[in-house]
């Protein structure tokens, strides 16, 4: 068999490098004729730019792992390819661990535009020392928001610039989705022609944000600042993605006892959580490269690949076999209890909604900007919801024809 060389791109090497290296090592033993060149970008955003820029000239990347919410954009621009035929050719997807739930994470543009590689969901990090000093019990943290707020106020009362809680609302709409989905809401209507968040669920989400400030005493911090404050032992509870777990552990070090737990429940029945993470999408057009790239993608999302991924990152597995069969990951979770919080929420994970059309990224920015008004207490949730609704509506693709 002929030697093939493929170029594979992924973002956030800080988080993912070890996992890809491990997978590549295992893959090389299996397919010695396939050589992989790696291209990385610091974050998803630049990864997206890289692929789009290349699309405008000549593509050199054959396989790219992109953030879930960006996949739609590539699908709509005809860069990502439908993977279902390839998958079908190998047999029943579900038997290979690609359950419909998992496939749906990367189902955009009406076809299977990618295969989920790693998934994450928001969790709560907390400083067990502070919780104890404030009279809380680290082993039985509050499971609803009012409880959190009370604990937060008690931690703040410790003084010396200590803050109680911080919720990672800035950046993109992911954490807002968590609040919205937690209420059982959704972003757009079924046919994607109109918004659906302007109802009671959306208002609930924004009110909850408002209460975090009013009742929980949440300070106005940037995300990096919050993370630093947390690492410095000055922040009690920190709500953010499980993906940051490894870095946080490193920063915290021996400063205090770091613990994690699930997100507080909002609506026990309809409440869901958005899924972050990456999916691989196939770009290669050249037949040989395409085949080789597919082989790697398939392997990286197989039970074996997923196991390696989880062991080296802390993400939630995205292969049903790896989740179900204890031989893959049970041992790992026993040894790393901090990583369990995310898996305990895996059952309520749903895809991170990606907006359609050209303005998809802008929509998320608009939502963040609007939330800032609440956090800075410059507007009520009702005002914000109304404006957010009208602005997002304006940015949605106008129905053609």
């Amino acid at each position, binding site marked *: 068999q002929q030697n093939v060389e493929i170029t594979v791109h992924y973002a*956030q*090497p*800080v*988080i993912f*490098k070890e996992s890809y290296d491990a997978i590549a090592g295992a893959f090389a033993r299996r397919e010695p004729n396939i050589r992989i060149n790696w*291209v*990385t*970008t*610091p974050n998803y955003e*630049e990864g997206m730019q890289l692929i789009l*820029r290349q699309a*405008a*000239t*000549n593509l050199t990347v054959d396989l790219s792992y992109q953030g879930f919410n960006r996949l739609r954009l590539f699908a709509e621009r005809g860069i990502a390819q439908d993977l279902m035929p390839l998958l079908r050719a190998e047999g029943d997807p579900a038997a290979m661990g690609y359950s419909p739930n998992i496939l749906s994470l990367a189902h955009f543009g009406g076809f299977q535009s990618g295969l989920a590689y790693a998934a994450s969901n928001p969790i709560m990090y907390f400083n067990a020392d502070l919780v104890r000093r404030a009279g809380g019990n680290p082993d039985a943290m509050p499971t609803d928001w009012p409880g959190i707020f009370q604990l937060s106020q008690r931690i703040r009362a410790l003084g*010396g*610039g200590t803050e109680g809680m911080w919720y990672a609302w800035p950046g993109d709409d992911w954490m807002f989705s968590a609040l919205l989905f937690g209420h059982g809401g959704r972003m757009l209507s079924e046919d994607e022609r109109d918004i659906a968040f302007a109802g009671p669920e959306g208002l609930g989400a924004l009110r909850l944000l408002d209460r975090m400030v009013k009742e929980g005493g949440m300070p106005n911090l940037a995300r990096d600042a919050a*993370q*630093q*404050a947390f*690492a*410095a*032992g*000055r922040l009690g509870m920190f709500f953010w993605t499980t993906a940051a777990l*490894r*870095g*946080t552990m*490193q*920063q*915290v*070090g*021996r*400063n205090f006892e770091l613990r994690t737990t699930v997100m507080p429940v909002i609506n026990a029945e309809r409440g869901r959580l958005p899924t972050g993470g990456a999916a691989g999408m196939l770009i290669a057009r050249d037949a040989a490269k395409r085949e080789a790239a597919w082989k790697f993608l398939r392997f990286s999302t197989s039970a074996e690949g997923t196991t390696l991924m989880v062991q080296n990152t802390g993400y939630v597995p995205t292969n049903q076999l790896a989740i179900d069969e204890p031989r893959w990951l049970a041992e790992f979770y026993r040894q790393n209890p901090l990583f369990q919080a995310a898996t305990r929420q895996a059952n309520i994970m749903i895809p991170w909604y990606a907006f359609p059309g050209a303005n998809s990224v802008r929509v998320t920015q608009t939502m963040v900007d609007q939330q800032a008004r609440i956090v800075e207490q410059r507007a009520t949730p009702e005002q914000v919801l109304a404006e957010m609704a009208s602005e997002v509506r304006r940015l949605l693709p106008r129905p053609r024809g």
Partner: protein
Amino acid sequence: MASGLRIMALAALGLLFMAPYVWMLAASLKATDELFRAPMALLPESWAAITNYGRVLREVPVGLYLWNGLVMCGGILVFQLLFAIPAGYALAKLRFAGRDWLFGAVMFGLLVPAHVPALPLYMALSAGGWLNTYAALIVPSTISVFAIFLFRQFFRSLPQDLINAARLDGMGEAAIVWRVALPNAWPAATAFAIFSVVAHWNDLFWPLIVTTGHERATPALGVLYFRTEEAGDDFGALMAACTIMTAPLVLAFLLAQRRFVEGISTTGLKG
């Protein structure tokens, strides 16, 4: 006593200015978990300098980055000077049709942010198969309108009779540029050299676009790679990398300083 006051004021201001650097240096000596401890201590509790710097030197090809930086900055600087000095001289001291237009173009060029022509340039380089070469790093920056403007300003203050004398002595305009104008604008040339090198040494935007991988990575890009691939939130090591990459610039500045002190005197002239 006035001079004492002056030095005190300078020292106080200097401390303020140094603060971020002090933090960077201090951080490069600390382990990550010490870094954000609430009452910050300047010196680390447990010295992690060896770990941090060792990690940088071990995990990234520092020498390669520095070499790439040197080639890129050197190449850019040479061409910028080659293009800008004659142009600056012509704009300052020669009268010719179209001069005002050219100066207008310079002023316009000053306004154009690097991002604007970036995409077309990228496409051209890509079409020419130049991506990931030194040429790709150097070529787009070879023209510096900043330099043209700077040299024009400094050359304009040169006494006209100096140039007249040179013409009588048989120098052509090109010879005047290099033999009379430039030697009398050394501080400006040095200032520009420093800025050019600093700007490109630290530039992330363009190298990130035209290079992939370590092979042609510049120092700033190296830091970025180090952060994204290795260090992540290991601030201590990251700051160690920053310190290493910044040090050559600081050294270069210290060496170039003398050029500012050496005043250019116009005592060749009377009146």
